[in-house]
């Protein structure tokens, strides 16, 4: 009986060390940097269609230093389980003029529209306007949905480097 108890005590001690270490890794991951695999056509030519691994930092959006021109990871307002990678084109208070790409319904008008981004929101768009579902479709998104800022691409290795404007 005493043998089992000491084994159990040792097992709990070891597991708690592992759990605490994993928690520490997770804190670093969500507050500092993380590697994210992004794919899809909406950010061509900046990001590849088949997928890139990018380094994302999670500090800037917490201190409000994310602005127009930044590539960000943002939680989709249409499906909360999906994370999108888009560029911020305008922040609250800016005026945005945009054209919807030719609509699938030919009777609908194809004209440009303007609006002012409301308080606490940002306007996001993919670099590839023809194949991107973004703020032109679902409107400005609240700043609180931004998860991090993309600043470095690490894979594929021939295009290693910072992602600019």
């Amino acid at each position: 009986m005493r043998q089992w108890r000491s084994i159990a005590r040792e097992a709990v001690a070891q597991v708690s060390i592992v759990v605490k270490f994993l928690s520490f890794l997770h804190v670093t991951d969500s507050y500092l940097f993380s590697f994210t695999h992004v794919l899809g056509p909406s950010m061509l030519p900046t990001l590849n269609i088949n997928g890139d691994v990018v380094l994302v930092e999670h500090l800037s959006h917490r201190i409000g230093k994310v602005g127009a021109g930044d590539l960000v990871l943002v939680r989709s307002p249409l499906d909360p389980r999906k994370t999108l990678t888009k560029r911020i084109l305008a922040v609250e208070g800016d005026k945005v003029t945009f054209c919807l790409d030719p609509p699938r319904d030919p009777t609908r008008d194809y004209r440009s529209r303007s609006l002012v981004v409301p308080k606490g929101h940002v306007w996001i768009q993919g670099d590839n306007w023809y194949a991107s579902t973004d703020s032109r479709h679902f409107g400005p998104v609240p700043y609180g949905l931004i998860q991090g800022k993309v600043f470095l691409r690490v894979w594929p290795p021939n295009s290693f480097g910072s992602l600019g404007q």
Partner: protein
Amino acid sequence: MGEWSSFISIVRNLSLLYVTHKYVGTAAITYGPSMLPTLNITGNVLLVERISIRTGKLRPGDVVILRSPQTPRKIICKRLIGMEGDQVTYVVDPKNSDRCKTIVVPKGHVWVEGDYIYDSKDSRNFGAVPYGLLEGRAFWTLLPRKDFGSLAPKPKS
């Protein structure tokens, strides 16, 4: 060597606390008039759990805390009235008129309202909020002691 290992263990314990706070549950202090009579104007301490948000097991009638869509640093506490696809009828401006409006909550969004609609800035002002802004579900009141217990379902007007 001794100080270093105790520092490491403090960091690890804090990280574990942080992970619990982020993924399991936490406490929240609320104040303001928008959730009268369920919550006090001067402040309540609520127990908030984050598991229902992640598994999607929220139901209309739950009291939730969420990030404000207008002020991203602020966390606000309201009651969930409608999930995506639900039809919601609400009084637009109860202080001045009885006019009602009915809308359908869009995909990926939820409709939240305060219990005290005369003094509450909620979805009637800023529209349906994306589900991704929800932070947790409040299920238990810790303080003040006379309100200790689970949160009341919405009082019928």
